[in-house]
């Protein structure tokens, strides 16, 4: 079974067929262009010409005879040769007419640069829908509207169909962006650092071709080695996760995403702990991690990690060697490396002997290797050559501080030369700015990753290493339990929905959990004091009593829970107190009765929950439970279906894992039973999209080998 069983985008196969014409067109028509320099319609045409496009260009402009000395056509249908790609730059109110003509002309790929659609309101949304309908009628695939355009640096085509100022360098990074304006800033940033791109795509409103279609295109694009994306909204989280998994599993291409919109106002309105704690951004972070996507915090970090992937091989291990000409930066780098989970390699005897023999007596020949401030290119050469040949070293960090005798440019050339031919990654940090700039330029031109700060270098290496190490871990499958009673759970939910109920009382929630094999203690519902006393006696003291009401989500808030009731007399009093408390604190609430269960033995309290995210679907939450849920917010999330390894990771991820595993002389708790509960809950979440939110709080976990059980549960349905 596919872990994420979702369909690909509806027009996926049509887009797949049209992508070649979009990115490798033999002819391009710019529809709506004009002769006014400094406008988007003019610049688009100018940029295509200026980038030395290898195909034929057709300006289409009802009012011009020629533009940039190229013959212009009144309408696209007037062109007497085939057209592969059309770029639409007309105002939004006439784009549909041009689109219709594209269809009549048989054009299958269109980029709509024009703005004034969904982003401006309902009328714009209607216009966008109209474009989509025309595209569907003619099997056209289009990018945009409201975008910067597309760039393909492949010398076979040389296409800059955008209003970016300059064509970027050729490279192996495929860049996708929902924001057009950000693209121009990214291109400028990248140009200064000689970062090249294979494809550069601004997809704007993604009315037709989405980021998912483009990700699959870049998966198969031989020129693309790394995929970077700026995203403002995840329209289909499950499809994104599936695409990422497919790309990583099939090609090993890493996907780095900068996702904006980290705040979430909606979460506070949720009825359950899981609902309130699982904000959309937290879920997004968890889902990206689960799918192997590297989430970046800013553009700089995205490119720091991106160039590491693009320029250098994946490290085989986290054992690195640091070569520096200054002690302080060496220590800084060591600290940063350790913090990021890297290890300083121990040099072999051969390497140690080489360094002892060849480096000055004052040099530090152990890792980090300090070649001393007066080191010139020959000493750097020796140290790098020695370290890179050492079998115990799987990555090299070269640090340089600009001292008066440091021949910076020669050392940069030496780094390029000495590392050529090795399959071990080499990263550099020439610290400073003005003095090291020409050296840095040499490194950047020769595709040696360079970082102003060693901390950024260590972080980038760590992300790359982590990606390589975890790449195959994501291939495990979710467990499916056969000992479940789906029918029973289904009947409870159907009955409640039939009665327009959205909140299930604990007795029903417990039955659903029990049907899916989660450990529960079935209780009894008393509706009179006499029944309460009898049932408590039947269950066996001590017992717990809780108010049962479809109108009360938080029982403790209305003093509707009494624990540790020891005898019949206390049972009667407890029953009456609960009714009295509720009548005062939530007057008018309809009470179905009082739910009585056996009082559990003491154990460690954790929380398990489900939340349905509009984009990613069912999400499972696990964390420290009881009264600590909101205090510590010590929780982890995974999008269902949860695999066995993901369930294990969820348990390990929370801070309280140290308690569960028995730290500081405490006994170990039964984490195996928690893992099983997570997997069973995941199956329940996948089977019932009607479950909007679910809390098991607390799930009481006993010492190792003694299991766990759900002491309280609530379910919100939709």
């Amino acid at each position, binding site marked *: 079974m596919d872990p994420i069983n979702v369909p690909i985008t509806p027009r996926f196969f049509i887009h797949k067929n049209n992508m070649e014409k979009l990115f490798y067109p033999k002819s391009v028509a710019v529809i709506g262009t004009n002769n006014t320099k400094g406008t988007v319609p003019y610049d688009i045409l100018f940029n295509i010409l200026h980038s030395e496009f290898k195909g034929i260009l057709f300006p289409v402009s009802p009012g011009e005879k020629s533009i940039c000395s190229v013959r212009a056509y009144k309408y696209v249908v007037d062109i007497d040769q085939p057209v592969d790609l059309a770029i639409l730059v007309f105002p939004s109110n006439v784009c549909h007419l041009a689109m219709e003509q594209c269809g009549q002309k048989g054009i299958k790929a269109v980029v709509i640069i024009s703005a004034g659609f969904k982003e401006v309101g309902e009328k714009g949304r209607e216009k966008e829908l109209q474009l989509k309908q025309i595209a569907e009628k003619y099997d056209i695939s289009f990018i945009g509207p409201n975008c910067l355009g597309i760039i393909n640096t492949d010398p076979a085509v040389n296409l800059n169909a955008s209003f970016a100022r300059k064509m970027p360098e050729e490279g192996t990074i495929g860049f996708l962006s929902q924001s057009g304006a950000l693209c121009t800033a990214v291109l400028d940033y990248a140009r200064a650092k000689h970062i090249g791109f294979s494809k550069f795509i601004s997809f704007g409103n993604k009315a037709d071709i989405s980021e998912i279609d483009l990700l699959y295109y870049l998966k198969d694009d031989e020129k693309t080695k790394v995929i970077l994306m700026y995203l403002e909204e995840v329209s289909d989280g499950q499809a994104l996760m599936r695409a990422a998994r497919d790309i990583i599993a099939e090609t090993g291409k890493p996907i780095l995403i900068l996702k904006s919109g980290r705040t979430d106002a909606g979460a506070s309105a949720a009825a359950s702990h899981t609902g309130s704690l699982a904000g959309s951004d937290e879920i997004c972070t968890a889902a990206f991690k689960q799918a192997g996507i590297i989430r970046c915090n800013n553009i700089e970090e995205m490119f720091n990690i991106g160039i590491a992937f693009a320029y250098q091989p994946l490290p085989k291990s986290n054992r690195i060697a640091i070569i520096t000409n200054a002690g302080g930066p060496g220590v800084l780098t060591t600290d940063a490396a350790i913090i990021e989970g890297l290890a300083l390699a121990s040099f072999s005897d051969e390497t140690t002997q080489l360094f002892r023999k060849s480096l000055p007596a004052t040099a530090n020949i152990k890792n980090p290797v300090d070649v001393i401030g007066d080191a010139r290119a020959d000493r750097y050469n020796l140290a790098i050559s020695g370290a890179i040949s050492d079998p115990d070293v799987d990555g090299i960090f070269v640090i340089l501080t600009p001292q008066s005798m440091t021949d910076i440019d020669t050392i940069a050339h030496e780094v390029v030369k000495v590392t050529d031919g090795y399959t071990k990654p080499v990263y550099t940090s020439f610290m400073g700015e003005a003095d090291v700039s020409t050296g840095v330029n040499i490194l950047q031109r020769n595709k040696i990753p360079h970082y102003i700060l060693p901390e950024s270098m260590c972080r980038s290496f760590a992300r790359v290493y982590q990606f390589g190490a975890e790449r195959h871990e994501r291939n495990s499958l979710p467990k499916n339990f056969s000992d479940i009673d789906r029918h029973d759970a289904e009947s409870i939910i159907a009955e409640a929905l039939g009665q327009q109920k959205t909140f299930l009382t604990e007795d029903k929630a417990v039955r659903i959990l029990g049907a899916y094999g989660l450990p529960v203690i079935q209780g009894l519902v008393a509706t009179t004091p006499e029944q309460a006393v009898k049932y408590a006696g039947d269950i066996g003291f001590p017992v717990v009593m809780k108010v049962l009401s479809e109108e009360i989500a938080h029982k403790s808030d209305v003093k509707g829970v009494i624990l540790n009731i020891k005898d019949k007399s206390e049972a009667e009093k407890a029953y009456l107190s609960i009714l009295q408390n509720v009548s005062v604190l939530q007057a008018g609430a309809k009470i179905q009765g009082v739910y009585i269960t056996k009082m559990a033995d003491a154990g460690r309290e954790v929380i398990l929950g489900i939340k349905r995210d509009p984009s990613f679907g069912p999400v499972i939450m696990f964390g420290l439970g*009881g009264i*600590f849920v909101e205090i510590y917010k010590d929780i982890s999330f995974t999008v269902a279906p949860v695999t066995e390894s993901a369930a294990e990771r969820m348990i390990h991820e929370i801070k*309280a894992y140290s*308690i569960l595993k028995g730290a*500081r002389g*405490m006994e170990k708790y039964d984490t195996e039973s928690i893992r099983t509960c997570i997997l069973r809950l995941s199956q329940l979440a996948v089977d019932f999209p009607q479950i909007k939110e679910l809390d098991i709080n607390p799930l009481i976990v006993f010492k190792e080998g003694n299991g766990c059980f759900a002491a309280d549960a609530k379910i919100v349905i939709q």
Partner: protein
Amino acid sequence: MEKTEIRSRIKQVIGQLLERDISEITDDSNFVFDLGASSMQSLQLIAAFEEEFDIELDQDKAMEVQSVSGAVDFISAYLK
């Protein structure tokens, strides 16, 4: 009351209730992550502090106190 005395008495209460040796309890010890307190024990701790110092604590705010040093500051404010 001096903070030193408050700290010492708080540690005594914690040690007794959570069955931990006083030497294991440092100023930075977190009730849950370091000393393993459960929900019930946390509530009992608040009650025990109230009894020990003869004060009445704000339950919600008291629950937010997570460490020995936090408890010392919190209770000191009540004793002023």
